[in-house]
Each structure stands twice: as structure tokens, then as C-alpha cells.
């Protein structure tokens, strides 16, 4: 049976580090980086006799996440212990939430080729992150760094509603953008503050039962997630096609070989012995508390999109793109406050900025310049100071060395030539050098004009004002 006859079913558990100043159960800093074991204290190192105290901000942020993803908020909730031994887990249990998560029954909408699709969220719960193990390059052993131990996380568990790697990508980007909008996380995948466990199964199209799933843990780039889903789905189909069975197991995705590997055998199946943490009192939230958080939520992407369509008359594609990330959207709003040209600003973001980011394998949060620079750049185009081809070069320069675009063009000598005399000179030179094209044009081949303009642009290193160039060529040719 061909691949096309199978349906891929994917569910995600997304872990998102919350950007609270302090850890979930102690007052240590959550800052990323820092020398090993400098952001820890007796509590997050699990010294005997220490006790956790729940950081109220964590509850607030999680409730925000729940409300922004249309979840119901549990007024009665609790913390549970998930028991297992590992050197990065100092207490030998992770404080998490088991059967009473803070948020449940939510959904987000994603854009797919077939239009909008609703992805249901089973739950969002709060938990603490573990530390990190550093394996010494010189073979002196493994070192435990507890800076990350106790950094607050939310885990968002989706229903198995996703059917392709494209949908997964759209869903992840949507979640990321929502969390950025409500400012509960910086969602930096490269720093591990957004990671996903990906559950994949396949079944024959039309089947009602799910197939056996495998889980790939701790995936932290969009690209790896897409590749891993593709690989794993194909692997499962191949196993089934060859009459085999899928084993429910945890797999490790190896980005270099592009393959998944089995991590644990059945013998090691973990029994986490969840039970309510007796050190922490139950979490009780009043209607008023939840209502206050609801009222404090900022404008979410859906609503911004609507505004961009109506107020700024962006085309749907542009509105979707700009609101897909809070970083784009904020940059855009800051830029149009200066340049008053939403169309050009959104076009630059959608075409050039996205292209450069893609080439650099970076995410929008890594854009090194602000909306001020973007706005100024659009103004320079609008005033005719630079051509759109120069604007691309300015953008590239902005990524390398962010500063005022007018300064960049001045330093680089990229100011557009709009002096009629100078352009006339170039036009004459090009006409002289290309008699054949001149003849072609006169014989009715309009395309020859494009060639001549291109030659002139080349001659001026792209600095000639294209409108003027066009006009002067036409004037000369019609003489």
C-alpha cells in the first residue's frame, strides 16, 4: 500500500520555560547562561530540610497561557510529585501536576492549506525544569549544573489532532506566538526555553482507531521536528507494510544522521509513583483572580490580524505573516508609526527579513534591529533616497551591524542617483554600447528596454533612480 494511503497522527507536549524572574519554588534567578551552579540555593539543590514555596507568578503566567488558548481554568488544583532518579533531578522527584492541571480543554486555530483548523488542547500544567548534565570533553566525568533546576515550565498537551508536519509547524508557531504576545516566555528554542515531545503514529486513511505511537522527547528546533516527523512516519509505514508491529517506546532523534533511535527498553519502563506533594498546599483560584488575569491579557494575534486587515488594509497573507510572531508584529507597529506605509513595511518583513532569517537559520526574536530602523528604511525608499534593490542590501547590513539606515547608505555610498544630468550621461553611454538593443526596441520589442535599464543599473551599482532611468531611456529611444 503506498504511503499516500496512510494518515499521520501527531500529538505534541510542548514545554515552555516561563520568563519569571525567579524559579518556581525558590528565589534563585532564572537567567539563562551563567557559570554552572551559580543560580542555585539549598532549596533547588534539595538540601535536607528545605521546602518549596510556589512562586505565584508561575500560576499567573500559566493561567494567562490557559486563557489565551481558550482553556478552562481549574479553581482547585494541586502539585504532585513525579518520582525518578537522575542526577539532574536533585530531589529525585519533579514537582509537576498529575490529575488536576491548572488549565484544561482549550484549543488554538491554525492556518492550513485547507483553511483554518482547530487543534484541541487537553491541558496546560505547571512544573519545574531539571538541571543539566555536562559531559566533560576530557573524559573526567559528568558534571551536574543546577542553574536550570527549578526554572518554571508549563507543559501544553495537545490532543492528537495534528495530521502533518506542516500542521505541527503551524501549531508550534501559533503557540510560540501566543506565548510571546502574552509575555510569559521568550520562547527561545535555541536556548531550550521551548521544547516539544512529539508523539507520532500512523494509520490507514479512514481507520477510526489510532495506531501505536512512539514518542520523541526534547525536540528543540522547527526543522528537526519536521524532519523527525517525516522520518518516523515513514519508518512506521515501512514497518507496517512489511507486516511488522510498532512498539510503543521513547525514541531519540539524531539530527546528524537524520534517524530515530530507541532510548529505553521495556525493562526500564518507569513507574513515576505520582502522589500529591505534601509540602505544598492546594492551589485555589477565585473567580475574581481569574477574571483579573483575563482583563489584563494583551491584544492577541487573532485580534491584531483583524486590525491589520481593516485598519491598514494589508492583504490576508501579509496580515497572517506579520502577526505570526510578536517580534514581527511589534517591529511592524513600531515601523509604521514612523513611516506610515504599512504595505511596504509588511512587504519588507515578509520577503526580505524572512529570507535573511531563513538563510541565517534564525528566528524572529533574533532580529537585531528595531522597528525604528525598519521605519526609517521604508521612509528612505518612499522618498526615493534609495531604490528597493538597495533596501535589500541595507537590510542585510542591518543584520550584521544594526544602526540607522541613513547612516548605512551614507557610509556605503548607496544613496540613489537622482541627478538628471548624471543619469542622462549613463543613458547615453549604455545606448551607445548596445546598438542592437536600440534597434530591437525600435522594431517593437519592448523587452529591450528592460535590458538597457538593467545595464544602466549595473553601471551605477544599483544606485540610479529606476523611474528616472526608465523615463530618460524612453525619451532618448523615442527621439
Amino acid at each position, binding site marked *: 500500500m503506498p504511503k499516500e494511503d496512510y494518515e499521520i497522527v501527531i500529538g505534541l507536549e510542548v514545554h515552555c520555560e516561563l520568563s519569571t524572574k525567579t524559579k518556581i519554588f525558590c528565589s534563585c534567578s532564572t537567567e539563562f547562561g551563567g557559570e554552572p551552579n551559580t543560580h542555585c540555593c539549598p532549596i533547588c539543590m534539595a538540601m*535536607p*530540610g*528545605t521546602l518549596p514555596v*510556589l512562586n505565584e507568578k508561575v500560576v499567573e503566567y500559566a493561567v494567562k497561557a490557559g486563557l489565551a488558548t481558550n482553556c478552562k481554568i481549574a479553581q482547585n488544583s494541586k502539585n504532585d510529585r513525579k518520582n525518578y*532518579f537522575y542526577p539532574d533531578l*536533585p530531589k529525585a*522527584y519533579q514537582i509537576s501536576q498529575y490529575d488536576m492541571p491548572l488549565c484544561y480543554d482549550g484549543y488554538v486555530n491554525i492556518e492550513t492549506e485547507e483553511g483554518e483548523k482547530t487543534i484541541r488542547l487537553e491541558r496546560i500544567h505547571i512544573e519545574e525544569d531539571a538541571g543539566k548534565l555536562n559531559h566533560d570533553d576530557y573524559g573526567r566525568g559528568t558534571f551536574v549544573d543546577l542553574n536550570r533546576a527549578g526554572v518554571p515550565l508549563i507543559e501544553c498537551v495537545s490532543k492528537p489532532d495534528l495530521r502533518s508536519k506542516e500542521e505541527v509547524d503551524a501549531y508550534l508557531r501559533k503557540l510560540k506566538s501566543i506565548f510571546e504576545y502574552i509575555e510569559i516566555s521568550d520562547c527561545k528554542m535555541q536556548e531550550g526555553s521551548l521544547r516539544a515531545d512529539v508523539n507520532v503514529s500512523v494509520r490507514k486513511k479512514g481507520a477510526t482507531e489510532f495506531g501505536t505511537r512512539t514518542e520523541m522527547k526534547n525536540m528543540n528546533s522547527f526543522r528537526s521536528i519536521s524532519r523527525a516527523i517525516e522520518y518516523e512516519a515513514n519508518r512506521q509505514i515501512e514497518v507496517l507494510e512489511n507486516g511488522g508491529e510498532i512498539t510503543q517506546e521513547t525514541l531519540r532523534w539524531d539530527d546528524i544522521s537524520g534517524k530515530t533511535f530507541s532510548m529505553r527498553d521495556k525493562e526500564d519502563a518507569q513507574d513515576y509513583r505520582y502522589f500529591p506533594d*505534601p*509540602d*505544598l498546599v492546594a492551589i485555589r483560584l477565585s473567580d475574581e483572580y481569574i477574571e483579573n488575569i483575563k482583563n489584563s491579557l494583551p491584544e492577541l494575534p487573532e485580534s491584531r490580524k483583524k486590525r491589520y486587515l481593516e485598519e491598514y488594509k494589508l492583504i490576508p497573507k501579509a496580515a497572517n505573516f506579520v502577526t505570526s510572531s510578536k517580534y514581527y508584529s511589534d517591529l511592524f507597529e513600531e515601523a509604521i508609526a514612523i513611516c506610515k506605509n504599512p504595505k511596504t513595511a509588511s512587504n519588507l518583513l515578509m520577503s526580505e527579513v524572512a529570507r535573511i532569517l531563513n538563510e541565517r537559520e534564525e528566528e524572529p526574536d533574533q532580529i537585531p534591529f528595531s522597528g525604528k530602523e525598519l521605519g526609517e528604511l521604508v521612509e528612505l525608499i518612499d522618498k526615493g533616497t534609495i531604490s528597493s534593490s538597495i533596501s535589500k542590501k541595507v537590510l542585510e547590513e542591518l543584520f550584521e551591524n544594526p544602526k540607522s539606515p541613513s547612516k548605512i547608505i551614507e557610509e556605503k555610498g548607496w544613496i540613489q542617483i537622482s541627478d538628471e544630468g548624471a543619469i542622462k550621461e549613463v543613458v547615453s553611454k549604455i545606448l551607445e554600447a548596445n546598438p542592437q538593443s536600440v534597434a530591437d526596441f525600435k522594431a517593437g520589442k519592448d523587452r529591450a528596454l528592460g535590458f538597457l535599464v538593467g545595464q544602466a543599473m549595473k553601471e551605477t551599482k544599483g544606485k540610479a533612480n529606476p523611474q528616472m532611468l526608465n523615463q530618460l531611456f524612453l525619451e532618448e529611444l523615442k527621439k
Partner: protein
Amino acid sequence: MELYELTVHELIDKLEKGETTSEEITKSYFDRIKEKDGQVKAYVSTMEEQAIAKAKQIDSDRKAGKKLSKFAGIPIGIKDNMCITGTCTTCSSKMLENFVAPYDAMVIEKLNAEDMIYLGKMNMDEFAMGSSTENSAFFPTHNPWDLSRVPGGSSGGSAAAVASDMAPWTLGSDTGGSIRQPASLCGVVGLKPTYGMVSRFGLVAFASSLDQIGPITKDVTDSALLLNLIAGHDERDTTSIETPKKDYTKSLINDVKGMKIGVPKEYLGEGTSAEVKEAMFKVIKKYQELGATVEECSLDIGQYASAVYYILACAEASSNLGRFDGIRYGYRTENCENLKDIYKNSRSEGFGAEVKRRIILGTYVLSSGYYDAYYKKAQKVRTIIKKAYNELFEKYDLLLTPVSPTTAFKMSEKLSDPLQMYLADICTVPVNIGGLPGMSIPCDVDSEGLPIGFQLIAKPFAEETIFRAAYTYEQNTNFREEHRPTFKGGEQ
């Protein structure tokens, strides 16, 4: 009378009158420790040098007219499961033999604020698991009334030190009777406060939902004084409860007229020795003479308390003790080639038999497939027990029971039979399950001269009622005047 024989309120009197100094008091305890601790073995470690230095400092401050707490310069012994910055906190375990805490327990911060002096750390059953202090990884503690017998446990060192005048008072911790049972077996006053009254921050956890720190003292007045110092909400322990600050010495009133005391008949049944029963009837008679109404009542559900206790306490312990993994601090095996070895061998070698038994029990009851049958059911029964207590406290101000069904038993008598040992807690465990306050008050000795205690139990945060009734009993009887430890039964 020697200084070390006095109660703390008597020592404070003497200090205030200028009849003694903190240095004299402190030295008298260390002299007494040198004299008696070789036989009793109540201390895991002593802190003589720093204690005397601190006493001298306080004396000179007092002389200079500096405003000091009335407890400044009063010595105290601390059970070795509470952290004091810079000193070893061993929990009487090989696992923590060399663990030096970099922080103070909340109770220690409070005592520091009063400028109190630490005599040392008291021996205990390893990680507070046991009823005889024989489970200490270092050495057992002996009962000063008969050195061939146990002092009870797990706060056996804390109780034996007070009984033998090696400390004027001590702090113990009580998860299922660990303050009250040794206090009873050693003839001193032990109070387990309401769960949530004293911060557990810095108390090495055994069973978080049951553990509570409390005073072990020579009399009821000292108990109220020490509770005044340690009680109160602590933002670092979210299970500690915010209540208005009280002065418990105001409850030391010699009057129980009109008070209603219930005596659950189940605790005077066949498991309780005849001499203990007889002592209870004498206490009941005394309270009746003093004007209280004493009635028989029933706490039928209480028979399940021990089962509930050993499921919940072991479940919590199995998780609480996971952190002792040989990775960051504590004992690490020499015998390891990989991570699994570090865990397995560090824990096998670092923990004693009783601790391992409870970790295994606790792991079992939390395992998938057993959770509902054990842990969840135990939680449900716990709720029912609490409800039964609530109903009794609608009728009675206090409940009166024995503390221990027998007096101090012989050393190693029950060591090989854990179930027999677990029954030593049968009268005290239900109180922890209910989160209630309970006090052990010495009332008599048996035919062998071993102390017997009775227990007063009140509803949550009604310690005042307990203090009043206990104080009244103490004022109208003469246990301390009539009975003193004899240190008999020693080897020499």
C-alpha cells in the same frame, strides 16, 4: 539543688535575680553530660566550646546592661534532624554523617533571636523512623530510669537528656509519636503541636504531612514557654498556618472545673498493660476530683490509624528520602562503576535496615496498580478519622489516653519484630493522622519504677486547653518530686 536539676523558668528566675550566670548554667550541663552521657548516650555531638563562648558573651552583655531576651544564655539540645548552620545534621544516619548544613532551620532562627545556647545535637532513630532510638546508625540511647531499657523514640536522645538533667529542655520532632512516646517512657513532658503550628523549614523530612517539631521539657510551664518561642507562620513553609500570636503561659491556670474530657475506650483495651490502665484510672479520678467531667467515649475508627499511618508515612518517606542519592552531598559509595551503582550502593550502604524497610513499603504503596488500594484508600480513611475526631471535639474539650501501651521495654526486645515495634505508637499515631495537638504528661511509675505518661489531645490549635489541663494536673500531683531517674541497670 544543682543548677542542672532546675526547670528553665527556675533558671530564668535565678538569672534575673543575678544568682547565677549563663556560663555557670552552661558549664553545669556539660559537667552533667560528662558524668552521665557515657551511660545514657543521648548526644550525637556536643558543642561545648562555642556554647561556653556564647554564654560568656551573654553574661558580659547582661552585665553591661544590654537589653536581652529573658531566654538569652539558656541552653537547649536539638534533635539531630534540625539544621544549624555550620554544624553536622546527621539524622543519626551514616548517609548524613558528615553533612554540614549551610542554613538554619526556622526554629533555630527563632532560638537564635533569643540568644539561646546549643548544647549539642540529640540522638534519634535514623531519619526519625523508630520507637526506641535503637535505629541510630551510631549507637542506641539508654533510658535513664533503667539503662537496660529503651528511652523510646524517635526523639529518644531529646527525652533521655531532659530526664537525666543533661539539658534543661530540648526540641524533638513527632511524626507518629516521636516526641510523646519517648517523653512518656522517660518521665518528661512532650508536646506535639497542631500540624502547621511550627515551621518545618530546616527539619529533615520524614513524612511531610505528619512531621511536627515540639518541645520536650521538665514541666508544663517550660513547654508553654518553648512553644511560645517556636510557634508561628513561616513563609518558607506553606503548610505552616497563619494564626494570631498567642502567649501560652496565659493558659497555665490551675483550674479544670467544668472541663469535659472524653476517654476513648479503645485505648484502654487488651493491648494496654494493666499498670498503664491503672495509672490512667488514677489520672481520670484526679481530674474528676479537680472538677472536670470525665466520660468514656469511642473512637472506633482509630483502630485503622496505624495502618493508615504506615502507608502514608512510608509513601512520603520513600519520596522524601530520594534526594539522598550520593550525588550532591552525603554518603557516596566507593564501590561504583556507573550511575546505577552510585544510587544502589550509596543507598544500600548509607541507610539502615528500618529506613530501607520503610522506603520499600512506601515505594510499593505508591506503585501503579497499588496506589488506589493503599495510598488513596489510606487518604480516605485519614479523612474519616479527622471527621471522627471533629465529632468527639463537639462534645469534649479534651481526649485522654495512654501515650504508650507499656512502659519502657528492654533494649533489642522488639528490634527483630518491626510489627511489635510499630504497635508502640498505637496511642500516638492517630493524633498525627488528625493533625491534632497532643501532650504527654508523666503521672506515675510502674512496679519496676518506670515512668508512665498520659496523653491529652485537643482539637487543632487548642493547645491552650491542653496546657490548662496539664498544668492543673501537675500543680495537684507530685511526679517530679516523688520520682527521679535512678540510672540503674547499667553494665558496671
